[in-house]
């Protein structure tokens, strides 16, 4: 039977060979079930299909190579640092300490702000610097010529009254005024000054904080903002404030007054416990600080021009705009800035913010500082006499428009080390972005380096 079957099968068939070998495999060989031979390749290119032409391009399956399955690489094989996203590099920078700030050591170098002073953590920084310090692994800033000039001025001011040391940092948008102010505040904190740094002064006039009319002072108090200022001020300057004593009694409603001779921290705590007392506590605190001569006091205000706005965003019950000098906190700052109230030792430093559209530098402040006013302002344009009065005696400290090449190179180095650049960090990128920014610091970093993806 088997031999009959083997004779009748085609010679080359699998079954035939199998039967010859003695093993029978169930492989069908007839018709539709026959194993397919080498595939026939159709004619390639344009082929007539009825009236139309059809383009045929097929891959020859005989020529197709067998693509092996892809397998992921092991961790040992992934040596390039591109794959190591979780490894965070920390910048190794010199610390911004007063003794390290000599011209030879520090000029055109990026220095990180010390964490011991707690200044940045507690007082905060302006919004754009906040974003920058979130991206960078360390809060740092480049030490420029103007920084050293400002610090020398502050050193000279530590012995004299703040009436003679009222300085305003000016310059075009993005040139580095806020950074210089922050460096000044950090320096003074390191030098043992009492520092009150208000990075966002415009919050006192843009109606973002609560206000309440006080008939005794006939001004609008801002209890929440005052409370915040007291809280932060206490946290940063605790040790120094414990040494200082009050000179006058501070009465407290339905409670024991704060006796004269008690530490200033007690006075501040009274304000912190009862938020409604915070504005008056703040006012008394500033009066006490202005009397004492133990420690110089720095009042550092960023977005300074907001204090001199003609009208704030606040409204009174008649829906008329409230003036800045009728609000407690701006009034306090204006009085110290104008020299009506002075610290026995210390300085008031303000930094303008030119890029803002909501609080532009007003005419009166421009005239006091000798800055050009963009609109025509002849003798027939009204200047508000109170604001003119508050802007008397302010000195201008112009921050240079351009970073020097060395300063820009240090900044470039920092951003490159922190892996923030998307492009190849060669000198072509540096020079072209520096030239495009015309030396402007913010434009160089934010519109140049971080906004570029060049080869």
């Amino acid at each position: 039977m088997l031999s009959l079957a083997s004779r009748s099968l085609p010679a080359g068939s699998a079954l035939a060979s199998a039967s010859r070998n003695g093993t029978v495999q169930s492989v069908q060989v007839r018709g539709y079930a026959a194993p397919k031979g080498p595939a026939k390749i159709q004619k390639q290119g344009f082929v007539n299909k009825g009236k139309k032409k059809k383009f045929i391009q097929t891959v020859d399956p005989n020529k197709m190579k067998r693509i092996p399955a892809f397998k992921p690489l092991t961790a040992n094989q992934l040596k390039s640092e591109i794959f190591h996203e979780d490894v965070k590099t920390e910048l190794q920078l010199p610390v911004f300490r007063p003794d390290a700030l000599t011209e030879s050591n520090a000029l055109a170098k990026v220095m990180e702000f010390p964490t011991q002073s707690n200044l940045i953590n507690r007082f905060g920084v302006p919004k754009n610097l906040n974003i920058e310090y979130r991206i960078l692994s360390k809060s740092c800033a480049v030490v420029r010529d103007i920084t050293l000039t400002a610090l020398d001025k502050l050193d000279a001011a530590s012995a004299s009254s703040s009436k003679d040391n009222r300085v305003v940092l000016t310059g075009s948008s993005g040139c580095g005024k806020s950074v210089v102010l922050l460096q000044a505040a950090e320096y003074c904190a390191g030098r043992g000054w009492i520092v009150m740094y208000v990075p966002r002064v415009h919050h006192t006039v843009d109606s973002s904080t609560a206000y309440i009319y006080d008939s005794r002072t006939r001004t609008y108090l801002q209890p929440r903002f005052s409370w915040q200022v007291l809280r932060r001020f206490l946290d940063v300057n605790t040790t120094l404030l414990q040494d200082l004593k009050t000179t006058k009694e501070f009465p407290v409603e339905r409670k024991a007054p704060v006796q004269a001779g008690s530490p200033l921290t007690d006075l501040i705590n009274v304000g912190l416990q009862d938020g409604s007392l915070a504005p008056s506590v703040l006012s008394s605190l500033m009066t006490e600080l202005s009397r004492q001569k133990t420690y110089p006091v720095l009042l550092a205000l960023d977005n300074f021009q907001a204090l001199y706005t003609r009208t704030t965003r606040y409204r009174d019950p008649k829906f008329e705009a409230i003036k800045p000098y009728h609000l407690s906190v701006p009034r306090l700052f204006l009085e110290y800035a104008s020299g009506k109230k002075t610290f026995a030792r210390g300085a008031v430093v303000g930094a303008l913010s030119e890029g803002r559209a909501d609080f532009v530098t007003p005419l009166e402040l421009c005239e006091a500082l000798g800055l050009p006013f963009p609109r025509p302002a002849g003798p027939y344009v009204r200047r508000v006499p109170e604001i003119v009065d508050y802007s008397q005696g302010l000195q201008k400290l112009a921050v240079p428009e351009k970073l020097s090449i060395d300063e820009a190179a240090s900044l470039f180095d920092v951003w490159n080390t922190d892996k923030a650049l998307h492009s190849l960090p060669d000198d072509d990128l540096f020079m072209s972005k520096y030239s495009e920014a015309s030396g402007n610091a913010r434009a160089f970093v934010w519109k140049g380096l971080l906004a570029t993806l060049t080869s």
Partner: protein
Amino acid sequence: MFNVLRQQARAPLRRAYATQGYVPPAAANNIGQSMIPRFKPRPVSPTFYTGLPSYFENVNTLESAITTSRNILQNLQLLPLPKFARDALPESTPVWKGKDELGFQVETKLTTARYRRLVGLLTQLEEFRKIADTAGCVEVAESIGDVTVLFQRENRDAVLAGGKKKPVQFDKYGRTYTIGRRKESSARVWMIPVQGKSQKPAAAAASSVPSVQAPLPPAAEVNESQNEATSPDLTPFLSPKPLAKTEEPTEVTATNIIINNVPLIKYFPHSLDRERIMRPFRLAGLVGAYNVFAIARGGGTTGQSGAVALGVAKGIVAHAPEVQPLLKKAKLLRRDPRAVERKKTGRRKARKAFTWVRR
């Protein structure tokens, strides 16, 4: 001998006309002046009897000059020239007078056909002059040239030089002044090489060749001079070795660009416009070498930035001509001809059509 026979045969056929009338002596006493026959003066030129005597006079002169010079050149075995010699002749650049001017010269209102005929003869004559000049026959060439120069324009040199581009001029401070245009904008660009602190400022009577600041570490220069055949040594750029104590750090200068008295960053808030202007510097590798002052007028941001970029590219080529092929390859020296397409009748805008309606 045959000539004499011919004349005798012709003699009886000749009629002798009396050209001079016979007047009997007695009749001559009372003759008025009008009766005395006057003899017509012979015209100066045989072309007198043509309709355009001066024109044909010139044509004849030129044709005879051609004939004469052809004979001379044939005698000198310069004609006919083989093809290779004819190809090797220099290109002739005659600037013939225009139809009106030539017509004034020949005292005839020239039609196109007549003008072309004259110019054809002049071209032929110029060809012979060229052959004689190339062959070194100075007298022949000069004599032919004396004829052809009468028919050439006086401002011949100016006309020949008209099509060529004028080279960019440098002023006494080494500044170039170039113009760039794009769309509706035009920019006037002044470029001056940046002088570092080590260099002294240029004197008022300084030469027009400025120096290019190309910051290179000293090691690279030494290597390049030694190994000219191999590729330049790039290791100083990749990992610069610390400078020796005696070495001064290379001074790095920056390119300052001011447009309409405003710094670049303020004038062009968009990075694309700024990068467009910086591109010629980057490709040439001359960022930080030149300061730019530009006055841009017309158009918008893209047009003005493109115009300034073109002016800058031209200025860079003027200062550093070796960079010209590179910028040309990058199409930075090309005035972008693209402009706003005009609106057409029957369409809403240049391309946008009105809504199609079936009926």
